[in-house]
């Protein structure tokens, strides 16, 4: 799949944002007054920036509100509702923390509900991808696990610097490893093939593409990453996204500085992971284009 920057930024930022927001809602980082304003503000900023980024890849963003209508069937629509619910439910928690420190909504029922919406948002986001049978690498329980683990790690780095965050980072690393390991070869194992795509038997091969020019489907759904490149990026994703932040969390004294220092590599790693998440995902439509598509685009 085409690794579109807007979608990568969207999932990464909203992952950290809602992860952090959820952590704040849960009261994992007790903040009050100005600190609460800053913390919640940051969480909101990240989450909303992510959501805004997601509209950049829309053909008609002015109609984005329509995306709320199909919550009964569409994970994208549900994600919309969940994110609004999470943002809305977190508002009293944040306001309370900032202006009525005595109210202590975080960590209590209202906070728990708001956090649940945050988790739900992440889950919905992940399900947008996990639901797609057309992309076997995504169509798997590892996808929600991966997204939730990243949100947890990001949230923990910001909210709970220290061993807990280190553990969360390692969990996200584990989720990555799991997703890589179980994802590799799933496309092939799923059984779809040019033969099934065309019904023309096992000895079929694309001869000529329908058009010599590229098209939307090819650009959007058929992307090739060189093996070497992918391996390097996986190491970066693991190292920067999970290893380094975990290390920093363990060695640095918990605090703002630690959070900030760990968040930077973590985000970089998350971006790498998300880039790979898209770029390495093979869509079954590729069976129709096969290598001919590469030749047509000169990427072989």
């Amino acid at each position, binding site marked *: 799949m085409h690794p579109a920057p807007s979608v990568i930024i969207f999932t990464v930022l909203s992952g950290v944002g809602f992860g952090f927001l959820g952590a704040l809602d849960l009261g994992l980082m007790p903040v009050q007054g100005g600190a609460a304003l800053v913390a919640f503000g940051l969480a909101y900023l990240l989450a909303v920036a992510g959501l805004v980024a997601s509209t950049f890849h829309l053909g008609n963003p002015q109609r984005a509100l329509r995306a709320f209508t199909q919550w009964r069937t569409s994970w994208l629509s549900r994600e919309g509702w969940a994110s609004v619910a999470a943002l809305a439910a977190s508002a009293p928690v944040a306001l309370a923390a900032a202006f009525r420190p005595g109210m202590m909504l975080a960590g209590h029922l209202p906070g728990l509900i708001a956090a649940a919406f945050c988790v739900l948002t992440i889950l919905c986001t992940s399900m947008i991808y996990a*639901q797609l049978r057309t992309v076997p690498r995504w169509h798997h329980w590892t996808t929600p696990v991966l997204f939730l683990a990243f949100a947890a790690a990001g949230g923990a780095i910001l909210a709970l610097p220290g061993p807990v965050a280190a553990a969360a980072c390692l969990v996200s690393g584990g989720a990555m490893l799991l997703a890589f390991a179980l994802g590799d070869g799933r496309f092939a194992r799923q059984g779809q093939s040019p033969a099934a795509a065309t019904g023309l038997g096992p000895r079929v091969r694309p001869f000529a593409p329908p058009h010599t020019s590229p098209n939307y489907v090819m650009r959007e759904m058929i992307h090739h990453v060189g093996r070497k490149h992918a391996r390097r990026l996986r190491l970066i994703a693991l190292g920067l996204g999970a290893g380094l932040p975990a290390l920093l969390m363990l060695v640095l004294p918990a605090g703002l500085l630690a959070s900030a220092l760990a968040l930077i590599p973590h985000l970089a790693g998350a971006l790498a992971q998300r880039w790979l998440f898209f770029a390495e995902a093979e869509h079954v439509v590729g069976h129709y284009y096969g290598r001919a598509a590469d030749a047509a685009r000169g990427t072989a």
Partner: protein
Amino acid sequence: MTALPPPSAKKLGLVIDLDTCVGCQACVTACKGWNDQGYGAPLSDMDAYGSEPCGTFLNRVHSYEVTPDDGPAQIINFPRSCLHCEDAPCVTVCPTGASYKRAEDGIVLVNEDACIGCGLCAWACPYGAREMDAAAGVMKKCTLCVDRIYNENLPEEDRQPACVRTCPTGARHFGDLGDPESAVSRLVADRGGYALMPEMGTRPVNRYLPPRPKDARREASVLAPLLDLQATGFAGWLDRLLERF
């Protein structure tokens, strides 16, 4: 809307004969021509005269090579457009309800006024049948020429998809695959028509008729010579031949 309607009795779709398609691409440009001025926004062509032209087409014709174990390799031309699936994943993923399957005939359409251009439905389609129009920012797909097949401004015989009407070899057939007695259903039954990627669970309505077996070894049947030319010479051959006359 986004939820699929209960299965309709009428299932309109195409039956494409891979034994007959010569890959002429007529259906491709006829489709482009009709839909450029018909349903919804025009089908744009970006960089139309430049180095990487990229336009929206609702129907594309691939060509595959099949190399059997015995006998020479074959080329099969393979048109591909929306299959109007009964379990259309492109519909259920749509967040806006723009993508829907018509309750009365099963045609899968995009309501362009509601489409935000998120592209999710195209991701959900296994067949690459949806293309986002780069100029209009809305999702485009085969409409089964819904603005032709019922169009009272067209003569009765023209109420069929543009691609079917233009196909010079008659490799494309349009009809009701929900009716087992329809001409298309009978074709499918007679010729062993099949669905693409059934394991994706989309239950396509369109069917493909497989190429007939080719290059049968016919070396066995040969002509019996009139008589041994060497033995009788030309004169003997001529006599035998003209005797029959």
